[in-house]
């Protein structure tokens, strides 16, 4: 399976892409997927969302098709 990784705001700057399709398996966690595409990446204050909802860095992604990296938000 593949998951589409989306990087917004500072994460876009840091990773250098907005979207990236990654091969993965349902039992991989967001943290494991990120460590493959960005070795040394530590979430810090960055949250992760799976299929439009906030998720855990250390839970398997299951059937999610979209993984978004959400740095601290600042709308308004």
């Amino acid at each position, binding site marked *: 399976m593949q998951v589409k990784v*989306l990087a*917004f*705001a*500072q994460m876009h*700057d840091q990773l250098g892409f907005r979207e990236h399709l990654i091969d993965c398996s349902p039992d991989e966690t967001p943290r494991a997927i990120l460590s493959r595409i960005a070795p040394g990446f530590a979430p810090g204050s960055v949250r992760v*969302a799976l299929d*439009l*909802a*906030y998720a855990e860095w250390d839970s398997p992604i299951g059937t999610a098709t979209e993984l*978004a990296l*959400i*740095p601290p*938000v*600042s*709308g*308004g």
Partner: protein
Amino acid sequence: MQTHISFTPDFINPPPLQLPSREIGASVEFLGIVRELERGQPLAGLDYEAYIPMARQELARLFTALQALHPCAEVVFIHRLGWVPVGEASLFIRVLAAHRGEALRFLEAAIDRMKADVPIWKRSASAIYQRK
């Protein structure tokens, strides 16, 4: 409760007020405007981006949760994206309710929670420049 959530790259023109019933006693409107000084630095404007489908979903969830606390009849939410010059609005929210207390509580909590959880980002031109 009726909810209207939209994102626009254009100048925000608040839609005309239309009351959904004869039981509306309060309309509260908020415009968030880009200021020249942010943390002491003069700005020409701010650049906004959003993860739009998730932002819509988070806002809808947030409004439903707030509706249970502060019953309101309608909320209109418009966030501008892209470049917003100083003196123009980045955000418009209108809340209609039977009573002003509920409309004000809803509005204030909606802004607070949006700022905590809804995937929208602002950046100053200088910050964008510095990243390059």
